[in-house]
């Protein structure tokens, strides 16, 4: 196993090795000791092939506490650009907000992320976007465990013939349900914050339901 790993990673840069190293440490069993990284990305669009990440926002959550100084927020320098999406994320092409290169962003992000558990709303999208970016630099996929608040939220709902459950719940709907101010919506870090608070509330709700266990949550 070790041999196999070494062989595969032989051409990978140091920062990736450092990131991988973090996974040698097992995740704690107690949920209060686990570091969650709640993240959101703003992108030029929804096409995994062509669209690019414009900004990554992430904050770290441990023991129901968000440490503001441990927040992560970067804006990326991208050539690919869709005018149609400016309305959503508000990032104009020429608006240089201390932009850094994609590779630089990945490097910083992996350093921030370590072996933490990722939490995101519609996590599939963000993960795919990030993994595509990694792939462009010949890097393997992210190895973290991932939790999706959209999926978890559905688990908090009661099973009742009277309630029509939706297939998807948007972050706006969650913010509405949990009474979280929708300030800074559609900035990566602002959305991460909303996701983080929603995540905390969802966990509290799930804990009250029967048979809650961390293992089940992580599955």
């Amino acid at each position, binding site marked *: 196993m070790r041999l196999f790993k070494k062989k595969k990673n032989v051409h990978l840069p140091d920062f990736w090795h450092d990131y991988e190293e973090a996974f040698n440490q097992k995740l704690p069993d107690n949920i209060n000791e686990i570091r969650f990284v709640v993240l959101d990305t703003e992108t030029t669009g929804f096409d995994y092939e062509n669209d690019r990440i414009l900004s990554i*926002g992430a*904050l770290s959550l441990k023991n*129901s*506490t*968000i*440490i*503001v*100084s441990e*927040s992560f*927020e970067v804006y990326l320098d991208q050539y690919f650009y869709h005018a149609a999406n400016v309305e959503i994320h508000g990032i104009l092409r020429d608006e240089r907000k201390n932009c850094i290169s994609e590779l630089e962003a990945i490097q910083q992000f992996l350093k921030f992320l370590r072996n933490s558990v990722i939490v995101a709303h519609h996590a599939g999208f963000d993960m795919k976007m990030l993994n595509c970016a990694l792939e462009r630099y010949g890097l393997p996929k992210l190895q973290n465990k991932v939790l999706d608040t959209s999926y978890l939220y559905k688990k908090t*709902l*009661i099973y*009742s*013939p*009277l*309630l*029509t459950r939706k297939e998807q719940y948007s972050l706006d709907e969650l913010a*509405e*349900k949990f*009474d979280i101010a929708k*300030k*800074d919506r559609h*900035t990566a*870090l*602002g959305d991460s*914050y909303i996701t983080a*608070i929603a995540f*905390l*509330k969802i966990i*509290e709700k799930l*804990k*009250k*339901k*029967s048979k809650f266990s961390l293992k089940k949550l992580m599955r």
Partner: protein
Amino acid sequence: MNNTISIRVADFLKRFPPFNAISKSDLEMLAGKVSIVYRDKGSFIFETDEIPHECFYVVHKGAVILKNKEKDSLLDMCDEGDIFGLRPLIANENYKMDAYALEESILYAIPLEAFRPYSQNYQDVSNFLLESFASNTRNPYSIKQKGQLVSEKASESNNGSDNVMFDLQQVTYSKKIVCCTKSTTIKAIAERMTKKRVGAMLVVENKLPIGIITDKDIRNKVATGLLPITAKAYSIMSSPVITYPNTMTVSQAQMAMMKSNISHLCLTEDGTVNTAAVGILSKHDLMLTLGNNPAVLMKAIKRARKVKKIKLIRKSIMNLLQGYLDQNIPMTLTSRIISELNDACVKQVIELSLKRMSTEPPIKFAWLSMGSQGRSEQLLHTDQDNALIFEDVPETELTETSEYFVQLAQIITKGLMKIGYEYCPAEMMGSNPKWCLSLSQWKSTVGHWISYPGPEEVLLSAIFFDFTIVYGEKDLADELTEHIFKETSTYPVFFRHLASGALQNPSPSGFFRSFLVEDDGAHKDFFDLKRRALMPLVDGARVLILSHQIKSINNTAERFERLAELEPNSQELFLACSYATKALLKFRTKQGLLHNDSGRFIALDTLSKEEKIKLKRTFKTIKELQELIKVRFMVANLLS
């Protein structure tokens, strides 16, 4: 480090002392070092004798209770913007109280080390630290900023007399002082007082109070014709102003008003007329503080211009309820008064929501409360179950009209959530387009439930048919009721289904008359008072009263009393049912107040022997009632 979150934190903090004294850039710097802490309802932030954390706390959302563990007395309640846990940090001693979240809360934890430099650079901040060191509990300025008159003295004396809830009563004196100069005309003054809804106006000169004009002055000196409305302020003002320091206690304020026979006190920075006025305290504000009086609370609700204010009043209502229970006031009276007050809160929320819509409602509508609130049995905060019904419109306008009302209902349900009614987990709320219908849509919906009574329809009927109108056009609700009776007489089989639904509740006791407890979930080994004891009575009363075609009695106990009149043969049983309902409701309410929840689940080992016997006695009544329903509606045939 500056980022979206730290700016967000700074934006919040700058609204409250001592942070309002700190410059924007410094505050953003400080905010970057903050931690955001989430605490679920009932969980501790710190406990007595714990070593102090490295940070103190500011409540961002929710509420935190500070409690003396030994005496089990409440010391303080911290609301949005309040600071706590600062003193032990500075004094370097262990926490002397428990702090726990009264409701789901988000707190900002500010490290003292990061905060300390500002206390040296800003005079206001250092004063703040000094004062909080000197005073015993928390934010010393809350007295001024939040209008909290309850100072240390007041809370101590009250703890002594066991009236611990006193501390929780929010006193709000108007800190937005309405004032004029001595040459303002009386007409302009009266107009402003009306607009600002105040009973007194301060006359100032160079920010110092020189006189005060109250409603009474205008009545006595102007309306009598003594002076024209063009006269100037100085001609009618009372002068000099009687001033007090803003740190005075409730009892001092009471004494002051009695002594000088005045209804408004002017509070200044140091208590003399030589410093700027910081607020006006009216007799009404004071009454509200002392406020175990439904009339005062009712007035306060109607005066509330913000949903947040209603939330505070609801806390007073809970105190009132506690008082009634402690004094053993009859349950019928208690539930009637509390329900009235709760209804008034809902009404006010609707009033305020209507103001937020850009246009007036195009047609008449009615807001219905269902479930326990509809039955006037809701004493504690529970989930909201409600519906909206609007007049019929031509087909072409239906979409537009229902969109308007759904939007309105969304604002209303959000407001209700803010004052403590949680969203219904099954989304039975007016904001759900399925529960926001025109009169004829409702008619066909309930008609469908009655003519095709499957389990789902019976459940829906059970919840919906206890509706009561809270706001709006009564005729709409009446017409719907009429329709329900008409339909049920056409489809009598509906009653059999409703009756069978009423018998579906799980039994409260086992074969050996032991309590049956829940065997799963968060309430494992608790007794589910609602489902096992209250619901059988509620459901039973509903089917019986509907079969008698009696309308406009929604309260379960009252329904049984009426049934006792209608059926002399079963009089004894029905009266027993009425009694059992009241007893269980009281039980639930007491448990709920004790644990700050809905009181639905009860830990049996906390009950005294006497309480257990009382509970069991009601089970016997429940069994007899269920037998009667089974026989009368021939449910057995249906089940077999």
